[in-house]
């Protein structure tokens, strides 16, 4: 049972009453109506995980990105990450949770059954992947809320240092509504399109990383390059902040990946060790490539490898083995490294912080390889009846659907915003820096 359901991290989101309604669904866990158990160990772990995912976002992601921009734009990154997260949290409890996991059985959305979290109390329970085990619905809501809050924050790296603050907020409000919530429903809800297809996405490789990655690529193409791009030195203003941010991302990612198991059991510990070794191997791999290619391994390279590894192992961490995780991390880095150093330079677009190059490319490689390394013969947990070819095909379909859905709708939203609010600040403001212009303050004073 566990194995069958292990496909998807948070598939069963319904509170118990809802579950009763969907009990005819073959993929739903058979809950013994008499005695579903809430184990406090699971609750403790899920609360820890939820807090960790917030920590990933702020200060983690904020610093990782913030260190990479010039000091005059530092606060704009911190503010965007912070306010996007806060805004999406409020949206989540107003209607986001409902349209994603509200109990509706459409393949595309969850309906309006739980607007304003109506009906949820401290006694409401959500199912886990183990029959008979439940966790409080509030912690499931909060855990998923942090996922929704970090994802649009990833996108902003692509058009950093030139975007209008209000435009970013408006974009993100629309984006979570029309892109993130539907895709999360499709992948993680038992009635969702990709869930039913059988796509494996343990902790959100498609929902979070590919989704944000493609939206980022579209965004930087629509917005255009930074003034002075390619001519002026746009070196990161604080590699220290970037390193701190990357380390915090790794730390917080244990909440992200391992929390997606919904329980503190053996399967969770597998997800944890995979998240360790894939990331470690990826970091080493990027540094090694740099060492070979130019004789020096940079901190930015190591941080990039770290994030690429984390992204790539995300969909896979529940079903591959540690050796598969290492291989997956290394392969993902090969792809990302090639992409950001060669492909991107060739096409000369300005994905300022390489959101697509790391999250998009790393996410795609991870999603596809999940199909490969989940096989028992390659150290994964899938048994004899598992076909690598068939699964890889499903994975590719899931990736393609995500790329198209997110790419097209994101494009429409960008254009809409550009025609109304305007996406970009003027050149003088860009020169002065967004901190003073948009936020009226400076990041640092003597």
């Amino acid at each position, binding site marked *: 049972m566990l194995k069958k359901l292990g496909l998807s991290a948070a598939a069963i989101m319904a509170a118990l009453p809802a579950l009763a309604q969907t009990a005819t669904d073959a993929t739903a866990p058979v809950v013994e109506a008499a005695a579903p158990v809430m184990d406090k160990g699971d609750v403790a772990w899920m609360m820890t995980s939820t807090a960790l995912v917030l920590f990933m976002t702020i200060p983690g992601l904020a610093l990782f990105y913030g260190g990479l921009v010039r000091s005059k734009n530092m606060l704009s990154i911190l503010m965007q990450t912070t306010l996007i997260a806060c805004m999406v949290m409020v949206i989540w409890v107003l209607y986001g949770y409902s349209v994603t996991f509200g109990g509706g059985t459409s393949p595309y959305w969850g309906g309006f059954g739980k607007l304003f979290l109506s009906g949820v109390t401290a006694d409401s329970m959500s199912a886990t992947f183990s029959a008979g085990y439940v966790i409080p619905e509030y912690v499931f809501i909060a855990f998923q809320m942090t996922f929704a809050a970090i994802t649009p924050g990833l996108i902003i790296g692509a058009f950093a240092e030139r975007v209008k603050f209000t435009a970013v907020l408006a974009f993100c409000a629309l984006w979570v509504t029309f892109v993130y919530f539907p895709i999360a429903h499709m992948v993680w809800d038992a009635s969702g399109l990709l869930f039913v297809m059988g796509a494996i996405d343990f902790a959100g490789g498609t929902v979070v990383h590919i989704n944000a990655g493609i939206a980022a690529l579209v965004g930087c193409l629509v917005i255009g390059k930074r003034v*002075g791009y390619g001519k*002026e*030195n746009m070196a990161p203003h604080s590699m220290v902040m970037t390193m701190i941010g990357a380390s915090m991302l790794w730390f917080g990612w244990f909440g992200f990946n391992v929390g997606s198991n919904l329980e503190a059991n053996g399967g969770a510990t597998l997800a944890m060790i995979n998240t360790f070794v894939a990331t470690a191997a990826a970091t080493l791999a990027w540094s090694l490539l740099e060492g070979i290619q130019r004789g020096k391994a940079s901190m930015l390279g190591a941080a990039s490898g770290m994030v690429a590894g984390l992204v790539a192992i995300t969909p896979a961490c529940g079903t591959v083995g540690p050796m598969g995780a290492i291989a997956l991390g290394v392969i993902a880095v090969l792809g990302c490294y090639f992409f950001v150093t060669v492909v991107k330079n060739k096409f000369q677009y300005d994905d300022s912080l390489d959101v697509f190059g790391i999250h998009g490319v790393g996410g795609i490689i991870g999603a596809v390889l999940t199909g490969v390394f989940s096989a028992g013969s390659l150290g994964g947990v899938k048994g004899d009846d598992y076909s690598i070819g068939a699964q890889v095909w499903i994975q590719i379909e899931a990736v393609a659907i995500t790329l198209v859905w997110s790419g097209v709708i994101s494009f429409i939203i960008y254009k809409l915003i550009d025609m109304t609010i305007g996406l970009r600040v003027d050149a003088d403001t860009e020169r*002065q820096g967004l901190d*003073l212009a948009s936020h*009226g*303050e400076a990041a640092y004073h003597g």
Partner: protein
Amino acid sequence: MIIAAIKPYKLDEVREALTAIGVQGMMVTEIKGFGMQSGHTEIYRGAEYAVNFVPKMRLEIVVTDALADAVVEAITKTARTGKIGDGKIFVLNVESALRVRTGDVDDDAL
């Protein structure tokens, strides 16, 4: 000695223009400029602070008399945007110059 205050993002362009006409060295300092270009206002929890200074780059270039006019011209051309705050150039007389490494003096030192 030519001392110039310019907009920071013009630094690379000016440096290139100067190299092109044969300037071999300079000293660059990040300064706070005060002039007609007004600074900005920062507000911290209700308390408003006027920051009167604008970041500028200050260049100091010592060249032979022969080259001086060309240097002033090169800076003027590349640093000009036509907007307030483009900066100033001042020329001062240098009595002697010396290269520490070799002991070369005056024109040889530049």
